[in-house]
């Protein structure tokens, strides 16, 4: 797998020369990067994961990468306290922040990535915590992420923009952003419940009283056919447990089909743009690029 990607990268860099008629070199480069990220999607697929959530409110919130990145980057113990985040949720917020760091560090240490930085790999061997230490506390973390809140220079802003244009990072960010939105909603619901009935001093009673913004069921279908089902503890006492489970089952079946549709479209495009034809050298506009890409 690593080999394939190495080869692809090499192609992308070797082929900077302009060739196609009417298409500027930079656009050609963009196109190659785009095709590469299309292909990367296929490499990134390890399993199909379907999550079913019950939420209190569905808002038409839009995913804006910069905003999502900024809001997760900002998470720290001080920040959580300032924002009045419910104690029971703090761990999960911190986990999100650590995940963001981890995703970026993985990019920096991936030799096939354009973010690859050998110095990070060297330091990782000595004392890098995010890659090696699962018990790492957030204050000990020395962040490598570019700062979107108080960027020290224009360069830093560009760095943020660059990482936000990486399709793999974006996919992870979108998931984290979904989880954060759910946490934010749950936080609000917990506080509201607590204000309504101050008697809910005990955390576990309160947790049970708030039944929204939880992932109730998760199914992971691995490529080798293994299926893993996970259920949240709260589902046991839920008054509409059976409906949720039924919705989830249906959601898994549907999800599989929906995703297949999306994937077939992407694979079709990748194939169609790389396929070698018989008359490959006969048209002037079928430049050398397509042939080397294969």
């Amino acid at each position, binding site marked *: 797998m690593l080999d394939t990607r190495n080869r692809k990268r090499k192609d992308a860099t070797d082929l900077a020369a302009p060739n196609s008629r009417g298409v500027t070199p930079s656009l050609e480069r963009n196109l190659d990067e785009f095709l590469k990220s299309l292909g990367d999607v296929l490499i990134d697929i390890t399993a199909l994961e379907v*999550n079913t959530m019950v939420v209190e409110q569905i808002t038409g919130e839009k995913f804006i990468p910069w905003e999502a990145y900024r809001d997760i980057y900002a998470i720290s113990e001080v920040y959580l306290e300032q924002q009045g985040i419910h104690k029971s949720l703090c761990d999960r917020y911190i986990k999100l922040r650590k995940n963001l760091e981890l995703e970026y560090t993985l990019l920096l240490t991936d030799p096939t990535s354009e973010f690859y930085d050998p110095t990070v790999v060297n330091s990782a061997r000595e004392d890098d915590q995010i890659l090696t230490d699962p018990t790492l506390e957030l204050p000990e973390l020395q962040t490598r992420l570019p700062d979107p809140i108080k960027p020290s220079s224009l360069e830093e802003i560009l760095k943020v923009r660059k990482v936000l244009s990486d399709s793999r990072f974006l996919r992870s960010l979108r998931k984290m952003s979904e989880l954060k939105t759910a946490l934010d909603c749950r936080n609000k619901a917990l506080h509201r419940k607590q204000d309504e009935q101050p008697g809910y001093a005990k955390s576990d009673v309160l947790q049970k009283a708030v039944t929204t913004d939880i992932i109730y069921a998760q199914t992971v279908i691995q490529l080798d056919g293994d299926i893993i089902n996970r259920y949240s503890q709260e589902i046991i006492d839920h008054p509409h447990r059976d409906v949720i489970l039924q919705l989830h089952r*249906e959601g898994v079946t549907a999800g599989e089909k*929906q*995703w297949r*549709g999306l994937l077939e479209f992407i694979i079709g495009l990748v194939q169609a743009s790389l396929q070698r*034809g018989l008359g490959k050298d006969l048209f002037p506009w*079928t430049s050398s690029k397509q042939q080397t890409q294969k």
Partner: protein
Amino acid sequence: MQSLVRHHLYRRRSHKASDQQGLNLEPYIKVDKERITRTRVVFHSIRFNLDKDILREIQQAKETGRHIYISRELLADVRYYALIEGENHLQSGLTFYTYYLRGGSEEALMRSVISTDGDIFHQIKSDCLERPNFCRQIASTHYWLIDQLLGQLRLRGLLRLNLLAWELSLLIVAAMVIPFVPQLMQINLWMLLALVVMLLLLSIGLQRLLRLFLPTVGRWAVRQLLSGLISRKPRSKKIAKGILAWLVA
């Protein structure tokens, strides 16, 4: 009231169009786009606006195995959305909403985020669970509609290209023959028959030749399409969208 009348008209029209091709739900499917500058449009989500009647109609279609009809324009939009995020990045995930209209007000009951690498979030509004039957109906309709949309994304361009080879070969043969028609009229019948056979062979030969080029033409079209989509130039984007719409079987 006025909107209700329009609603009704839409429905009648959609009935008409859907008689043969499949259930036309175009008025109920909205692609949420935002015009950022005069020439730049960003896609955010796809939204299904349902009500009691259309819910029943969809239910029937599902039961009878009918598909929904999706116009080329809508399909091009969905394809574009499935590929491009923001200005010119690969899409990281698609968002679908189901809104339900009741008593003059509408609310979002379901939301799904489908990421290209296989992570899916389905969300359901909690008070919807209070009415289990309705909830099941909404959920299965929501899933079905997404499935219908994504199932039709796949490019079926080659079929069209084969058709193109036919048309081109006929066109070339016709262009060669037409100037000689008056002379041909004077020649005897046997000669004419031989000529027809020759033309037929020529047309088949031409078709084969053209078909040789098809993969190249197809690949060229797809690369033009992709580079157009990620291009910052509005004109290139427009052409690319045209190709997206055209590559429908």
